[in-house]
């Protein structure tokens, strides 16, 4: 590289993204980035390889800066805006999608369900502990045969005097086997209702799902509810019907709109650095036109996705976002993120398949991110319904 070559610009700096953020948002982003540099990045390849993450210890550390339930008000939560939450998700996922998943499930699914639909007693009991990382939560909606079709879930809650008795099985539950509390959705005579289930309740068990090739630095579990008897006060009073859990999922999806771009950014930055230092024939890989074409195209997609994410963040903070708009973001940004991760891998070639670089780890994680919290196909149908007024889900 010639001595007077201009200093390279980072992909998102080319879009002057910082100009769209206020000082507080930048401070929050920087705090999460530094946290990940210190506490996640040095260990993540090991955690991923072993398929074991010290989630409970990590949760306490994440809570230390206020990451758990950060966008909720009161109950020990930081009370940031939604855009800041998105930026935090982006930085977490730049380290690893599994770590972002831990935070998403705790804050946007488990805590949010209690925050939005719970009784004051439920909020007082669980939210402060969950914000402090002393209690881990999980969210039990999906079942083996009911992923995109949660309306069909078979887990049942039946009245037994004043109590409820729950029976059923949930699967693909992030944080399930380390959780202290599970928000479980079950069919009742009154439609789908949510229950706050302490995981030490008799009849509740959780087994970790092993042999995963994606999200290996994240705990994924199956929950079994075998005659789990709960007091009437365990029901989430304000959650009636499928709309309640879907509202929670929309919260988590919002985090993925930003988060997925974090993984893509990490791949792209890694790849640019690699291409600049890797010599092929007699010059750096970065000096080849084919490499530059790939880098330019990936940067365009990353930047456009970021502008979309920030636009959706501002809409959410204004209280104007619609679920189908979150679908736009989730569909586009997970799609471009996985495409970027795969394209980056072609530039790193064989090195790209190792754990010495984050690229294939991110790509493999994004396989899950592409389909969880609503598959790409479901989001296409949500958008299609918004455009045509026709429901084509079944």
């Amino acid at each position, binding site marked *: 590289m010639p001595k007077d070559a201009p200093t390279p610009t980072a992909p998102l700096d080319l879009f002057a993204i910082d100009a769209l953020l206020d000082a507080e948002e930048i401070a929050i982003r920087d*705090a999460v980035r530094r946290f990940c540099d210190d506490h996640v990045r040095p260990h993540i390849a090991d955690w991923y390889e072993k398929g074991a993450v010290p989630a409970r210890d990590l949760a306490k550390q994440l809570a*230390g*800066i206020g990451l758990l339930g950060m966008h909720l008000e009161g109950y020990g939560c930081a009370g940031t805006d939604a855009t800041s939450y998105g930026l935090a998700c982006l930085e977490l996922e730049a380290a690893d999608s599994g770590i972002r998943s831990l935070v998403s499930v705790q804050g946007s699914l488990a805590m949010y369900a209690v925050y939005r639909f719970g009784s004051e007693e439920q909020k007082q009991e669980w939210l402060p502990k969950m914000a402090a990382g002393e209690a881990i939560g999980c969210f039990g909606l999906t079942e083996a045969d009911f992923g995109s079709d949660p309306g069909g879930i078979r887990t049942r809650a039946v009245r037994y005097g004043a109590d409820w008795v729950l029976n059923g099985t949930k699967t693909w539950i992030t944080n399930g086997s380390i959780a202290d509390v599970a928000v479980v959705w079950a069919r009742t005579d009154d439609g789908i209702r949510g229950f706050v289930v302490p995981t030490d309740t008799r009849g509740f068990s959780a087994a970790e799902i092993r042999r995963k090739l994606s999200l290996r630095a994240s705990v994924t579990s199956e929950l079994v509810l075998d005659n789990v008897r709960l007091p009437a006060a365990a029901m989430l009073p304000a959650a009636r019907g499928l709309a309640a859990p879907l509202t929670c999922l929309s919260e988590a999806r919002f985090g993925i709109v930003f988060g997925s771009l974090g993984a893509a950014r990490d791949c792209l930055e890694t790849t640019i650095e690699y291409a600049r230092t890797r010599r092929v024939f007699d010059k750096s890989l970065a000096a080849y036109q084919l490499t530059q074409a790939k880098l330019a195209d990936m940067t365009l997609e990353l930047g456009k996705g970021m502008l979309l994410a920030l636009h959706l963040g501002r809409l959410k903070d204004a209280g104007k976002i619609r679920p189908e708009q979150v679908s736009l973001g989730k569909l586009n940004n997970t799609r471009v993120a996985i495409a970027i991760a795969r394209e980056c891998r072609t530039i790193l070639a064989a090195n790209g398949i190792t754990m010495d670089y984050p690229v294939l780890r991110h790509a493999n994680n994004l396989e899950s991110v592409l389909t969880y919290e609503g598959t790409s196909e479901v989001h296409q149908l949500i958008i299609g319904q918004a455009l045509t007024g026709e429901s084509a889900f079944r």
Partner: protein
Amino acid sequence: MKIVVCAKYVPDATGDRKFNADNTVDRVGVDGVLSELDEYAVEEALQIRDATDGEVVVVTVGPEVARAAVLKSLQMGADSGVHVLDEAIHGSDSAATSLILARAVERQRPDLVLCGMASTDGGMSVVPAMLAERLGLPQVTFASEVVVEDTTVRIRRDGDAATEVIEATTPLILSVTDQCNEPRYPSFKGIMAAKKKPVETLTLGDLGIAADQVGLDAAWTRVDGFTERLPKSAGTVVTDDNGSGADQLVSFLVSQKFV
């Protein structure tokens, strides 16, 4: 206990650093941060405050952008800030900086003044001593551990040959090393609370300092010139496919006069 921390805004060591035409460091046109070594002083102050039910005031001297050093300290948990901002300050050396700091600090009537062990740009480590001289206060520098009990402060200093423990009484000036604590990350609550915390902006006039007492013209020393360090060149990779690697390595070490 009232604690004042002197905090410096410095160019970010991970970014590009530049000089102005007058050979001073460009603090405005480059990314800057609270000097990393001052974070230890802020952290120590916060810990002492929390143990003694006190108050932490952060003082910085510098251009408009230097306010970021105060803000970062407030995000970490300091209670209020003072920013001395005056165009005439540009180019001040450590002697002038210590004069400005002394006037700003004495208004606070602190029990304890904490500084980092050095700035990450100038790296002179002399401001705490100069400040002590100007304020007529005792100073202990390079503290690796600070224990406060009422008005008694016990300080551990780790030297090359021995460790010494020094006892002093407040009011007192301390500089702390990067061994004395682990600076906290600003929490989200801290970040959001910071913008509501008071920051007082003072001019040289407010401190009773004349413009010709500070700045480039009043400096006791002058930077005549600078040369930027050459960028790191790519290393040499020794390929060992015939067992000659050790010989090549030894030849390299000899050629560089390392052995």
